């Protein structure tokens, strides 16, 4: 079946563009980059058709990577239904965004570098998805983190971009630490990292062990998928180009945590405490991020907090046992969130770089296609039936009610807030009078066609892709009775959010500002993201940096280590100047030394010769 071709094709694109792209024309770079992803997508389709119903997973073993003691880890790829879903999302949405980038990055410097890094990201993400043991998945995990760093800091001459790249990588590292510990614990307890072996042994393992592993994996997922408390890197990651935000920080990389959690369902179903923790963190993050999104003025930041919030929904889904619902939301979210970001990119491109909502307005008539596609995404994310977002969010909320009703109520409130802030962004950007001073022009077709494709998927995805039914044979079934009342309440919350946004931003434009003025303290708190970054800086970052500088550098490095190295040299010099005193220039003392030496020698010869 040659599964390896799926990731290797983008890798080849990376190598060609990376090594020779400087000399290629834009057309050649495009052809290589998009061709490799498109071919990969085609190969995924071929694989699906060739494998048929996939009742059981299909795996390929390539070579043995580590063989040491009890540990035998091979480079293995495996495909089952969950993998198919992820592969289609990654390669499909990835290909669309690659095409969009041709238009968006047309006037930016470093063109070939961008596409090279994007292809490298695709390679690592596909490795992550295709892996059939935790270590190969970790290779992909780390690799996408690296590519995220490279692409966030793409405009490397801007300090805030490189700072954001650093922040993303470092915060991710904390999560990776949890993942690594989980792997070590798995090896200790199960002797293997293969999915098949681990999940089979998890059936009979003690609950405490599984809970620990589950919590450590959750830490990894929190880092990669930007949940509390490790979400702080995602808003700053908006410093990268918009296609990067769409691909990596909406559709694919940040969903790796959800995918990993869903893949490890065999562990989690036997560790209810860990699953509960995931659900709680998910729903709290969803609520928390939505509140911050209410007050942001940068259009990309609004969508960034929205991503954090929607990821919280996915974790809520898997935490309540509705694994397929979480993955379903992953798929629909990829469609409408990527579309929102790409649309925002189109707006920014139209306004030649303006990102502040307060300087937009009335763009409905100037860039109509962008407006229409973004509207499709907005209704999808708001959960308006019968669009895709409604189906997936509904599945999660029903499962949440089953698990713990308070989660359902908090999730519904968050759904209302989601609808509110998304439509706030839409209304501020596209309605009313234009508050800026730039000349808006519509984007070229190469950017609009991907928007149209994603809009179609956002609207019809619920009908086209019956993900829960597709994944049902894989996960344990969850008894969740469909209660029409719950569904109605959540839909009503969404519609109320839209109506409130309409009232505050279209019908009575001044209402928002007076509302904010009357609740100044709360508004300041929310607008400044609850000062979380400042708290982290004061509590964690600055002590570490200062400690490093004062103690580790000035004391340990300079005094101890340099002191030891210099000290050895100084001692040698001292010994030398001591020995120098023997060279007095006095012949008689030299003679005495010779005499001394000869006496010693004669004595030694006598003793050796046995004359004692």
């Amino acid at each position, binding site marked *: 079946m040659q599964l390896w071709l799926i990731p290797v094709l983008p890798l080849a694109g990376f190598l060609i563009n990376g090594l020779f792209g400087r000399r290629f024309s834009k057309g050649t770079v495009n052809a290589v980059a998009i061709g490799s992803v498109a071919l990969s997508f085609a190969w995924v389709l071929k694989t699906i058709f060739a494998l048929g119903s996939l009742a059981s997973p299909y795996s390929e073993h390539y070579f043995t990577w580590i063989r040491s003691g009890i540990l035998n880890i091979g480079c293995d790829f495996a495909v089952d239904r969950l993998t198919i879903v992820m592969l289609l999302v990654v390669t499909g949405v990835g290909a669309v965004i690659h095409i969009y980038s041709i238009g968006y990055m047309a006037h930016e410097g470093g063109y070939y570098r961008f596409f090279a890094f994007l292809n490298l990201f695709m390679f690592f993400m596909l490795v992550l998805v295709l892996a059939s043991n935790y270590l190969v998945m970790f290779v992909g995990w780390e690799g996408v983190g690296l590519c995220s760093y490279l692409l966030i800091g793409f405009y490397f001459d801007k300090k805030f971009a490189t700072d954001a790249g650093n922040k993303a990588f470092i915060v991710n590292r904390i999560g990776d630490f949890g993942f690594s510990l989980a792997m070590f614990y798995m090896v200790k307890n199960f002797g293997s990292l293969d999915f098949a072996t681990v999940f089979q042994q998890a059936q009979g393992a003690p609950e405490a062990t599984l809970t620990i592993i589950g919590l450590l994996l959750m830490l990894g997922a929190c880092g990669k998928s930007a949940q509390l408390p490790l979400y702080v890197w995602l808003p700053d990651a908006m410093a990268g180009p918009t296609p990067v935000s769409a691909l990596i920080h909406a559709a694919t990389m940040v969903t790796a945590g959800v995918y990993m959690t869903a893949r490890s369902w065999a562990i989690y179903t036997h560790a209810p405490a860990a699953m509960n923790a995931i659900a709680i963190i998910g729903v709290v993050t969803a609520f928390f991020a939505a509140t911050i999104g209410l007050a942001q003025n940068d259009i990309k930041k609004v969508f960034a907090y929205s991503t954090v919030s929607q990821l919280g929904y996915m974790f809520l889904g898997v935490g309540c046992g509705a694994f397929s619902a979480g993955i379903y939301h992953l798929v629909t979210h990829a469609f409408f969130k990527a579309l929102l970001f790409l649309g925002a990119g189109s707006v920014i491109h139209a306004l030649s770089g303006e990102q502040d909502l307060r300087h937009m307005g009335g763009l409905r008539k100037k860039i109509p296609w962008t407006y229409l596609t973004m509207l499709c995404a907005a209704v999808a994310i708001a959960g308006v039936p019968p669009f895709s977002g409604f189906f997936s969010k509904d599945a999660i909320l029903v499962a949440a009610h089953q698990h713990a009703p308070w989660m359902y109520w908090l999730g519904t409130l968050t759904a209302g807030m989601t609808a509110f802030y998304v439509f706030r962004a839409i209304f501020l950007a596209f309605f009313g009078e234009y508050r800026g001073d730039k000349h808006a022009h519509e984007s070229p077709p190469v950017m609009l066609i991907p928007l149209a494709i994603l809009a179609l998927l956002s609207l019809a995805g619920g009908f086209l892709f019956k993900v829960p039914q597709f994944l049902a044979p894989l996960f344990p079934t969850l008894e969740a009775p469909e209660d029409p009342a719950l569904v109605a309440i959540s839909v009503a919350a969404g519609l109320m959010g839209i109506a409130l946004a309409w009232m505050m931003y279209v019908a009575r434009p001044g209402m928002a500002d007076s509302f904010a003025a009357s609740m100044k303290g709360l508004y300041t708190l929310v607008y400044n993201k609850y000062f979380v970054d400042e708290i982290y800086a004061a509590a964690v970052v600055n002590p570490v940096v200062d400690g490093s500088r004062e103690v580790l550098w000035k004391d340990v490095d300079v005094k101890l280590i340099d002191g030891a190295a210099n000290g050895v040299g100084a001692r040698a010099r001292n010994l030398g100047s001591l020995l120098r005193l023997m060279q*007095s220039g*006095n012949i*008689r*003392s030299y*003679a*005495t*030394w010779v*005499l*001394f030496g*000869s*006496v010693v020698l*004669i*004595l030694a010869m*006598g003793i050796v010769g046995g*004359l004692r």
Partner: protein
Amino acid sequence: MDVILFLIFAVIAVVCAINVVVQTHPISSAISLVGVMGSLAVLYLLLGAEFIAAAQVIVYAGAIMVLFVFVIMLLNAGAESKRGRSLMAQLLGAPLLVALLGLLAYFVQRLYPRSASVHFGGFTHGTPLDIGRALFTTYLLPFEVTSILILIAIVGAIVLARKEMD
């Protein structure tokens, strides 16, 4: 008879040697050294080394010591001045010398049992005939090398000691 001969000349040798070391004026040391060499020549005869005894008197006492005396005269060397000192020599010199003498004497006593003894006429192969035969057969190479050595010494001595021609 041999014992008495040995004792007399051994004592003369030792006394003259002590004199060499003790006298302040170099010329006195030189004369004492001649005395040592003469006594040693007699002792060589006792050991049957006729050629060596003759060479000792002719070469050592007759040529080398004369050279020393000439140089002392040339330099107008007077009694030794008392300046300068060496801490090492003062501290360690005497103990080390005593140790050296003690060690050597001890080893000699242990290695050579009393039965071995020397009497005049005990060794008859020290004649010039025997020396010559060995010198020009077994020791031919060292012989040639020493002749070159002497040549070098002559050249060196002339170069070092001559006056610069203006």
